[in-house]
């Protein structure tokens, strides 16, 4: 019995643990799902943790993965033990350096949570597409299948790279392994020391570049020698596999866990063998056990070391009896076979001739792309296929490929879950703490009992109101099931509203336990659950428990977090531990988790545990099923065919069942699909008070989800209005005599209440009420649905009657971005929505990867939509790093097509008519009326061309729409604009081309969880800046101003909405590059999202976020182009810092640093204001800029 710690951690932490222990320099950059590895490293660095040599590794965030690779390369070259963590697009950005690092025989390990690559669409989920793209780099590749292996192989790879001098890519499956929480044995520092040969470390260091012993490395070579030089490395690659095995053997001596390069598992006389890498191998192992117990002769060969591929060892690892082999690749190589398959075929051809009793047949197949489930049923299908005389080659498994007919059929009912232990599925809401509670339960059981534990968590694609599904397994034997629980003996539904649309009992086993959080009394619940569920409860003889967790939470002071309560229920009734032991364990864990946050928080959680037990009831199951409620699977008949056939299946959670033919072949999807989803996630929605409204439009302006709509319309449209439909006389002069309505989309609202906060009107009799107030949604839902439908049928206001430069009237413009999945109260989306209101019908959007691309373009539904004329923003996301260039590409293409169209218009003058030609060619299209006129001209032109059969006419017809002005918008966050995409952004603005760049500046990488960017302000705490950011925020605006011909502005909608509106209009009208940097509050700031606009006000008034516009057009008028739109800083910056946790938490972790950095941050504010006010007031400024322009 050893005394190593048993820990319950996920794969990322396991990799970071080993990597941190054996390195001196760590370069990092965030990317899902690898970010947590860098986050752990940074936190340990900030906390001063030591590696095995007793020193704290230096951790440095870079501007991109390309930058990381460069820094790693440099650090290795100068002798430090160096590592990094990445995946997917990040790994692709590292490829050039990886060739260099390998070519120079440099020791390093890159740890990769393997992920899909962006092709027809981005996917953050796991497969081997990224690592397979690196197989030519010369890096060795070693693959871990489980969390334990991740910790082990991270070390083995380090040992092997130091001895072999070949750099290693250590990979494991993104999410399935990187995010799976499992109980593993932690390597001790002594174990790690015992593995590392100090001579190899010294040798690595001695190869460094140093002026004390100068060499030159990285030369350019000519045809005479480059080839020969390239061949010099062969002996190193030949020796490498044996060195890896040696490291594995040494590891076995230290820890008792023996690994081999190719690890066979199964019947020693197996006839059918599956070859596989990664987490799927774990499930295969379980399946092989089951099939062999059924008298089959099957086995699995796990490939550990994929590069260098030791062919002879591979062949030797296979049983001699094998007759057929299926090679499973978790990647796709269009136009060829997949790489592992090709390696296996090659090995058999080159080395397998005399090994086997029968020449084995080999087939290859793809599985698990983008974290597609890979279950025992699928593996059985593969083994079954191997038994067929005409086995299908190049198959797929796990999908229904009705296009190329590649897929294998499998029996969904083939389930091999072990009967021992507890297998639980928990349905929760992101905000209710379900996942945290389950992670905690795993820790409790994993670290306090001999039981093995596993947890895997499935998240929604929405950032607000999202459903989480936790899959937990506990049992006496090691758990190899790397797939979702499909036969649960415990199901918990933490949100009763899920029952309306989701069959949470699907997959529960007979005699299982069902726990429901519901406000409904135990004696009434039987009538309140869907009929089909009640039937399941009866048929499967389930035990049914209920608790009103929100009520208990309120009583215990926990607010809306029910994590501790539901966790206590689980322990109380699941039987996973004796009840008393479990309650004590929960309280101990609460002390561990919350103790550092103070006694009060601790007590609150203890109270919750005690109150839970007193409020948990078992429902006595009646003899009859009496409920009349049905699960709502209705699809609106009015929805477009694609939405009904495809989108709705995804919404309902049936996307897995969609066949290949249902998917567009090139990633093109229809717009405007969020409106069909009707998520009903708001507990309260705003209700308009037409008695006191002053029609300022602010509520609609700031609504992050475009659920507050305004229309001014003729009285006649009120005919047939529902009785509760509200209206009032329009106040604007332009709308004299018209009616005015503010209507809320009740089922699309997230309940953020930002609209109420911004409303300036107070009820004169009861000042707590405003002109818009939050009220519970359920009682309002049906009537407001009718009102919303009625409202939608009222015509949109004539855009010519809208004063676009005033908030109050501009908000009657139809948003063409609605109901996104952004966080409730999001600070970015109001800007995006505003742009679509003003320019949406001619807008082309290039969107950098990040929050805005996720809420803007993540399936199943997307928020960009079109108006009644069928026009609206067209949108695309290329990558994270190239967005400015991508957008410039739009501009170049559109400009060229317009130029070409003009050429053809002139060419076809005789057909079109001289006057129309002149009007079309000379149209300035400076404002909306002019654009409208041009659109009408183009319609006439198209009509004329339709009757023409000439080739020229056909060409012109195909590009005629380009004659109408298109507005190119380049959107992204600060991670893109300040860091990874800055080089491109800089080049694009320097081009002088007419593009509009909108930087949604949250001052952190919000989408990946709040890592610091160069936009992060001094003193802010962020991931990768755990000790507070030491350097000031980069002044992107001032850098852009240096060109002199770029329109540059900062805006803050919460501080000055009219200014934001004016800036958008000015920027778009500017005939050249424009850059708007928009202050975007964010959940990653640790703020009250409902009152976040007040934070914006304070940000501006204290000078944290000065407002200004730099308009080069003013230079032509002899004016200073820089106008300061906010006043000199008032009060102290500290007032602002105090209301945001991102700043405030530093005073709780390092009060001295907090004071010092806050003082420096105040100085940053003062200095910046000095510079800007000097620039804005300098009489020479205009002249100077003019010269530079």
């Amino acid at each position, binding site marked *: 019995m050893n005394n190593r710690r048993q820990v319950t951690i996920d794969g990322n932490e396991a990799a970071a643990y080993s990597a941190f222990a054996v390195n001196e320099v760590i370069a990092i950059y965030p990317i899902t799902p690898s970010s947590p590895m860098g986050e752990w490293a940074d936190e340990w660095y900030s906390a001063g943790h030591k590696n095995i040599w007793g020193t704290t590794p230096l951790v440095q965030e870079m501007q991109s993965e390309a930058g990381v690779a460069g820094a790693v390369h440099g650090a290795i070259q100068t002798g430090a033990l160096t590592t990094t963590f990445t995946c997917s697009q990040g790994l692709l950005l590292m490829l050039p350096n990886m060739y260099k690092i390998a070519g120079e025989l440099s020791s390093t390990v890159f740890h990769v949570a393997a992920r899909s690559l962006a092709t027809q669409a981005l996917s953050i989920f796991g497969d081997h597409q990224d690592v397979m793209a690196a197989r030519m780099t010369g890096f060795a590749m070693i693959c871990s299948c489980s969390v334990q292996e991740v910790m082990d192989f991270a070390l083995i790879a380090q040992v092997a790279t130091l001895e072999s001098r070949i750099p290693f890519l250590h990979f494991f499956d993104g999410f399935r392994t990187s995010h799976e929480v499992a109980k593993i044995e932690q390597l001790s520092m002594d174990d790690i020391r015992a593995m590392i040969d100090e001579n190899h470390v010294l040798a690595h260091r001695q190869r460094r570049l140093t002026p004390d012993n100068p060499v030159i490395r990285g030369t350019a070579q000519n045809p005479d020698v480059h080839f020969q030089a390239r061949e010099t490395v062969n002996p190193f690659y030949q020796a490498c596999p044996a060195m890896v095995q040696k490291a594995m053997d040494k590891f076995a001596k230290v820890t008792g866990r023996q690994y081999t390069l190719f690890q066979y598992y199964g019947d020693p006389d197996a006839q059918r063998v599956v070859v596989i890498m990664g987490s799927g191998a774990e499930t295969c192992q379980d399946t092989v056990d089951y099939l062999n117990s059924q008298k089959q002769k099957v086995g699995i060969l796990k490939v550990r070391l994929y590069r260098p591929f030791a062919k002879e060892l591979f062949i030797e690892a296979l049983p001699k009896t094998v007759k057929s082999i299926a090679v499973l690749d978790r990647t796709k190589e269009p136009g060829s076979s997949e790489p592992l398959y090709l390696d296996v075929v090659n090995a058999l051809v080159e080395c397998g001739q005399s090994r086997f009793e029968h020449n084995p047949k080999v087939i290859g197949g793809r599985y698990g792309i983008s974290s597609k489930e890979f279950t025992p049923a699928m593996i059985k299908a593969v083994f079954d296929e191997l038994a067929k005389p005409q086995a299908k080659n190049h198959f797929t498994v796990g999908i229904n490929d009705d296009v190329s007919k590649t897929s294998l059929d499998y029996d969904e009912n083939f389930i091999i879950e072990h009967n021992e232990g507890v297998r639980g599925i928990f349905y929760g809401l992101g905000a209710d703490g379900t996942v945290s509670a389950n992670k905690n339960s795993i820790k409790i059981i994993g670290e306090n009992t001999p039981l093995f534990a596993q947890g895997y968590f499935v998240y929604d694609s929405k950032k607000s109101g999202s459903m989480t599904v936790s899959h937990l397994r506990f049992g006496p034997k090691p758990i190899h099931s790397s797939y979702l629980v499909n036969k649960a003996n415990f199901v918990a539904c933490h949100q009763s509203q899920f029952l309306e649309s989701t069959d949470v009992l699907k997959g529960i086993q007979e005699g299982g336990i069902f726990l429901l959080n519901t406000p409904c009394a135990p004696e009434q619940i039987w009538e309140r659950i869907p009929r089909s569920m009640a039937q399941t409860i009866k048929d499967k003889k389930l035990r049914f428990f209920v608790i009103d967790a929100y009520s208990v939470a309120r009583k215990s002071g926990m607010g809306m977090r029910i994590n501790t309560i539901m966790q206590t229920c689980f322990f109380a009734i699941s039987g996973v531990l004796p009840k008393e032991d479990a309650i004590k364990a929960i309280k101990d864990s609460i002390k561990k988790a919350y103790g*550092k946050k103070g006694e*009060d928080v601790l007590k609150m959680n203890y109270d919750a545990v005690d109150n839970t037990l007193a409020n948990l009831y078992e429902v006595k199951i009646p003899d009859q099923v009496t409920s009349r409620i049905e699960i709502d699977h209705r699809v609106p008949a009015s929805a477009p065919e694609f939405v009904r056939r495809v989108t709705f299946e995804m919404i309902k959670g049936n996307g897995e069942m969609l066949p290949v033919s249902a998917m567009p072949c090139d990633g093109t999807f229809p717009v405007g699909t969020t409106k069909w989803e009707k998520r009903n996630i708001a507990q309260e929605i705003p209700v308009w008070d037409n008695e006191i409204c002053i029609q300022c439009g602010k509520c609609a302006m700031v609504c992050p989800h475009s659920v507050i709509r305004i229309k001014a319309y003729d009285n006649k449209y009120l005919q047939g209005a529902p009785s509760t439909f509200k209206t009032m006389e329009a106040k604007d002069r332009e709308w004299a005599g018209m009616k005015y309505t503010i209507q809320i989309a009740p089922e699309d609202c997230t309940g953020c209440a930002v609209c109420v906060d911004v409303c300036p009107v107070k009820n004169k009799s009861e000042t707590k009420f405003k002109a818009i107030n939050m009220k519970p949604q359920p009682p309002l839902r049906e009537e407001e649905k009718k009102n919303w439908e009625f409202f939608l049928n009222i015509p949109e206001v004539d855009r010519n009657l809208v004063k676009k430069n005033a908030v109050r009237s501009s908000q009657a413009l139809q948003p063409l971005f609605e109901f996104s999945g952004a966080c409730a109260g999001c600070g970015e989306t109001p800007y995006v929505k505003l742009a679509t209101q003003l320019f949406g019908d001619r807008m082309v959007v290039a969107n950098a990867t990040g929050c805005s691309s996720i809420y803007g373009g993540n399936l199943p539904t997307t928020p960009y939509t079109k108006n009644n004329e069928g026009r609206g923003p067209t949108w695309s996301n290329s990558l994270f790093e190239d967005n400015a260039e991508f957008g410039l590409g739009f501009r170049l293409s559109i400009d060229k097509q317009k130029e070409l169209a003009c050429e053809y218009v002139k060419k076809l003058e005789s057909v079109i008519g001289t006057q129309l030609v002149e009007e079309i060619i000379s149209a300035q299209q400076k404002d909306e009326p002019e654009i409208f006129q041009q659109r009408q001209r183009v319609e006439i032109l198209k009509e004329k061309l339709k009757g023409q059969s000439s080739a020229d006419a056909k060409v012109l017809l195909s590009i005629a729409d380009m004659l109408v002005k298109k507005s190119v918008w380049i959107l992204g966050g600060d991670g893109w604009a300040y860091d990874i995409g800055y080089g491109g952004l800089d080049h694009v603005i320097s081009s002088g081309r007419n593009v509009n760049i909108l930087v949604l500046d949250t001052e952190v990488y919000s989408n990946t969880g709040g890592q610091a960017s160069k936009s992060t302000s001094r003193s802010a705490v*962020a991931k990768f800046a755990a000790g507070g950011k030491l350097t000031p925020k980069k002044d992107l605006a001032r850098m852009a101003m240096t060109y002199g011909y770029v329109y540059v502005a900062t805006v803050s909608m919460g501080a000055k909405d009219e200014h934001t509106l004016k800036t958008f209009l000015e920027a778009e009208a500017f005939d050249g590059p424009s850059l708007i940097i928009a202050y975007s509050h964010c959940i990653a700031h640790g703020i009250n999202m409902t009152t976040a606009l007040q934070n914006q006000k304070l940000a501006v008034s204290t000078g944290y976020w000065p407002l200004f516009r730099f308009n080069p057009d003013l230079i032509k008028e002899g004016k200073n182009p820089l106008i300061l739109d906010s006043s000199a800083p008032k009060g102290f910056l500290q007032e602002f810092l105090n209301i945001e946790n991102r700043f*405030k938490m530093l005073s*709780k972790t390092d009060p001295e640093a907090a004071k010092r950095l806050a003082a420096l941050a105040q100085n940053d504010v003062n200095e910046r204001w000095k510079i800007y006010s000097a620039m804005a007031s300098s009489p020479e400024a205009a002249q100077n800029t003019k010269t530079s322009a």
Partner: protein
Amino acid sequence: MDLKTSYMGMELKNPLVASASPLSKSIDNLRKLEDAGIAAVVMYSLFEEQLTYEKYELDHYLTEGTESFAESLSYFPHPSEFTVGPEEYLEHIYRAKKAVGVPIIGSLNAHSDGGWVTYAKQIQDAGADALELNIYFLATDPSISSLQVENVYIDTLKAIKQNVSIPVAIKIGPYFSSMANMAKRLDEAGANALVLFNRFYQPDIDLENLAVDPKVLYSTPQAMRLPLRWVAILYGKIKASLAATSGIHSSDDVIKMVMSGANVTMLCSVLLRNGIGTTSDILAGIERWMSEHEYVSIKQMQGSMSQKSCVNPEGFERANYMKALNNFKKIV
């Protein structure tokens, strides 16, 4: 000339004490106060409620939005330790004691039984020379009787006195049905001083924004009339020292308070408004007045105009009001 006075058993070089205010948050200010001649400093208050709120707030913002979306399972680093207790305050007391020679009096406003005692002990351990309990309990619940309210004060004081050895002052408001009885009960419960009186947040209404505006206003010179009356009444009737606070802005004010019976006078608004240097002006004013009026020591004048020592003791009682009214009528 002897300006010395004693307060809760401590010998002070003069009767000027800086009362709890943001000024004491800076060690630099403490040094300036000492240089200006202040005899003791009451530190800014440690508010348990604030600490509790901040703990909840921290917990809320560290967990809000977490474990909801696959790419951002959290938004902040996970530090292993947080300074969420009174550490910063205690450290400040410790540093203050190192920095200046005048007595440092800790100030505590707690809201839980455990909080009062725990923090009181910690303030003592941090080196404070004495402790001032800044108790205020706004009884807005109609079901709570005046006796219950009074018992909160008494019980809290007793609990703290049982657990600390440094002198304990109690700062109270004037709104007791029987102020004199309350003072007696506090005295019997072991208070080493009564600080008269606390000034509460006094909400105003912002007419433009139709909002309640709960700001604290600087005291006016008129505010000293209330403590002056009660210091004068209580002098000699209880063992505890008396500290006068509210509206003391000049040397005359100090002298009046001392004559009424105050051991010390607390300065706050005047320092915030006119600067720390005002302390030396007031001291100079006291010396000047004493010299002009041939007083040789503070102790000589202490209590000389208290109710028990003055020529017209009824002047401090209700009749005073009646008489004032009569005078007013006569004038009219």
